[in-house]
């Protein structure tokens, strides 16, 4: 008989409240309590993940601001980094994942997505800001199979198409997940540039990773 899955919704709601009010003391206490009683994966999947998802969804509805999403993701990243997780707490079923800001200096979106992915137990190679040649070489060198790209300007969003062509020409099976303002305002743009998915926010990025893994 399968083990009963504990309902951690109340803890997740408490965590969400602490994140939005930047209650660091309450957050640390709640997190310590959770990690004492439940496995790291349970805390990732049932406490932190749902809280961040609700905050991300609230931003989509205009109910919270990007600065709150950013602070929530940063606090979660700090929590995750504050403990020595056992090796089996990291998702071992995923191929190498890379993340970069594509041809821009605006790092906020990438930083939020990175924090969300880390808080969900995903190992991600953070390439920071990178132009097309750098991204290509990193992906090839690290054997990355899932690449998340954050863009701010329409021009750099369109340049993803060139990167896609280059991967295809080299026979590299890389799934590209894009995000950023141009893709949010033009919902078909991600398909136009040959991306495999588009994430509207941090939680969406996690869902996109899960979805493209099925297609590898």
């Amino acid at each position, binding site marked *: 008989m399968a083990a009963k899955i504990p309902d951690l919704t109340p803890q997740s709601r408490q965590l969400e409240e602490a994140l939005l009010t*930047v209650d660091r003391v309450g957050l640390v206490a709640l997190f310590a309590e959770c990690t004492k009683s439940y496995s790291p994966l349970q805390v990732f999947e049932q406490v932190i993940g749902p809280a961040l998802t609700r905050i991300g969804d609230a931003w989509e509805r*205009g109910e*919270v*601001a*990007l*600065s*709150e999403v*950013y*602070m929530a993701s940063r606090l979660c990243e700090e929590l995750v980094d504050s403990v020595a997780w056992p090796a089996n707490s990291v998702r071992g079923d995923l191929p190498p994942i890379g993340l970069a800001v594509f*041809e*821009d*200096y*605006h*790092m*906020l979106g990438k*930083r939020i997505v990175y924090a969300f992915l880390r808080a969900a137990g995903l190992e991600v190679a953070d390439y920071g800001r990178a132009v097309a040649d750098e991204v290509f070489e990193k992906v090839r060198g690290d054997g990355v199979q899932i690449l998340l790209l954050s863009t701010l*300007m*329409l*021009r*750099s969003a*369109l340049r993803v198409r060139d990167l896609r062509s280059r991967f295809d020409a080299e026979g590299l099976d890389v799934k590209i997940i894009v995000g950023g*303002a*141009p893709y949010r*305002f*033009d919902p*078909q*743009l991600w398909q136009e540039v040959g991306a495999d998915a588009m994430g509207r926010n941090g939680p969406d990025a996690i869902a996109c990773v899960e979805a493209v893994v099925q297609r590898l």
Partner: protein
Amino acid sequence: MTSDTLTPMQRTLATLGHREPDRVPVFLPLTLHGAKELGLSIEQYFAEPGNVVEGQLRLLTKYGHDCIYGFFFAGLELMAWGGGVMFFDDGPPNAAAPVIHRPEDILDLVPPEVAETPCLLDVLSAQRMLKSEVGDDVPIIGVVISPFSLPVMQMGFDHYLDLMLETPHLFERLMALNEEFCVAWANAQLEAGATAIVYFDPVASPTIVPRQRYLETGHPVAMRTLARISGPTAVHFASGRCMSIIGDVIDTGAAVIGASTLDDLSSVKDACRTKVAVLGNMDAIQMRHWSQEAAESTVKASIAAAGKGGGFILSDIHGEIPWQVPDEVLVDIVSAAKRWGRYPLDWAH
């Protein structure tokens, strides 16, 4: 179609006075298309103020819209503060690396002198020449990045949010420095010939910071700064929401507010009616794909939502039309605005 009876300036002033002019004014915030007109690269185009003058005049004639855009590119203000920009063949020059590397750097930061900063002087030179060309017939739009939003380029968005939330004394110091620069830069543009100043303040949008945080930070900055700018101002959120802070923006004394597609335009207009004019709300990112029918239906919808009673300027929400938007789409937009924007808008019930 009835022809225009007012000059672009008369039309714009009437609508800013919340009266119905001959038709809804149309502002196309065109920057890069001037380079196309002159057959120059974008870097060549912005290297010489005379190119921008020629480009803007050709765009005014070609599209028949209602403003001259005396704005080069946003990264220019970062250049003034000692930073760099990256030029591309097919997009706006983009701000390069931040100039504030650690919050403590703010203590040694000195605002640029407008009169001693070549990139700013180029803009002023262009605006002066444009003014001598169009006189009082066409409004010339100057632009400043708000003191509250400039740090996104000065230090990076994430580090700026950290500063705002965690180091208030350095945040206040940076605001004081930026305010001095912003006021001087705006007033220099007005003296050079700009009719009004767009105050780009995307960080102030509730999309980026909650209203309460804005009231504690960006709003007092805007109150102080706009009060010292010697001409009409338009507060623009570069596609961010504005609905929940309209009353606060009205308090700053701004004459115009930029609306987003994320807000309901008719609700924005209702909240602004007779107090502040509305600018919006076409999405230039989507314009790349517009057919003639799409351009017409979008223009009609915007005018129907916000045109009645004046106080409305049809424009884009981002503050810049991308290089990739075809000329034909721009022609279609202005054509539709001239057809459907003719007052008294009896068709729009």
